[in-house]
């Protein structure tokens, strides 16, 4: 009973906030609507007994959306939504496609013969996850790690305009970097 209440109390805001993401004119509001939706997702994961993952989702999504809001405001037109405008293309077709997808998914969910549960969740699923990632799923973990490193390098290369030749001169031999804003370690 209690679980039911919690489920619906999280599910309805999750969906409502998800819809509002594309209805708000203000980019800041859209971002924080998305955050609301994803925090509810984190809550649902907690409800499913995955303490660690639920809290990590809350943690990561908060940071991610807080940073995202900056980019939204920086690049988007009309960040505060003071000028009502639409920026969609092909909305009708998309509605049809999405409704179809939803219908197929719902039918599948309701009609599929879901297998019965095998085994019981252990007392500490977090421990299971850790042992799994450091054991049988080690390859996944390593791939993720490498992907994250690659992302860091790639995003910096993509986003910055200045390379080491700009910072340290043509021979890369300047003692101090020539940056528009001086850093804290005196390099």
């Amino acid at each position, binding site marked *: 009973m209690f679980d039911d209440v919690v489920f619906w109390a999280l599910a309805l805001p999750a969906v409502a906030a998800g819809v509002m993401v594309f209805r708000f004119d203000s980019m800041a509001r859209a971002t924080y609507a998305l955050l609301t939706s994803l925090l509810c997702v984190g809550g649902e994961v907690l409800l499913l007994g995955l303490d660690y993952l639920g809290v*990590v989702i809350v943690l990561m999504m908060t940071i991610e959306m807080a940073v995202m809001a900056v980019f939204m405001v920086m690049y988007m037109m009309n960040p505060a939504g003071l000028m009502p405008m639409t920026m969609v293309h092909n909305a009708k077709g998309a509605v049809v496609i999405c409704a179809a997808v939803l219908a197929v998914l719902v039918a599948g969910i309701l009609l599929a013969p879901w297998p019965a549960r095998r085994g019981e969740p252990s007392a500490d699923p977090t421990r299971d996850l850790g042992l799994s990632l450091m054991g049988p799923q080690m390859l996944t973990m390593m791939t993720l790690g490498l992907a994250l490193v690659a992302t860091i390098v790639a995003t910096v290369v993509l986003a910055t305009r200045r390379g080491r030749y700009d910072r340290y001169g043509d021979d890369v031999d300047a003692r101090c970097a020539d940056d528009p804003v001086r850093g804290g370690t005196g390099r």
Partner: protein
Amino acid sequence: MSLEPFLLLAAALFSIGLFGVLTQQSVVMLMMGLELMLGGVIVGAAAVWRHVAPAVADGQVLVVLAVTVMAVEMAVGFAVVTALFRAREVDMTDMAAELKE
């Protein structure tokens, strides 16, 4: 709690996200749609773990994967937008398509 409500929630989030991905002109808004879709995937994976195979941690690993993909997608997305913005001052998918020409 049974499995179906969680999966319905997942399907709903996925569809809303898909709508965003299909309609939004702005790269940034498009990424928000992707995030929502991944949010649906997370709920689905966690629910299936719980109700189908709680003894093995594979469902949890899928959630970890989805969360990481969200972070990576966001970071790469913003880097690309920054690069596009610098090159042509555009942040729209339609206009990015024109860049090919």
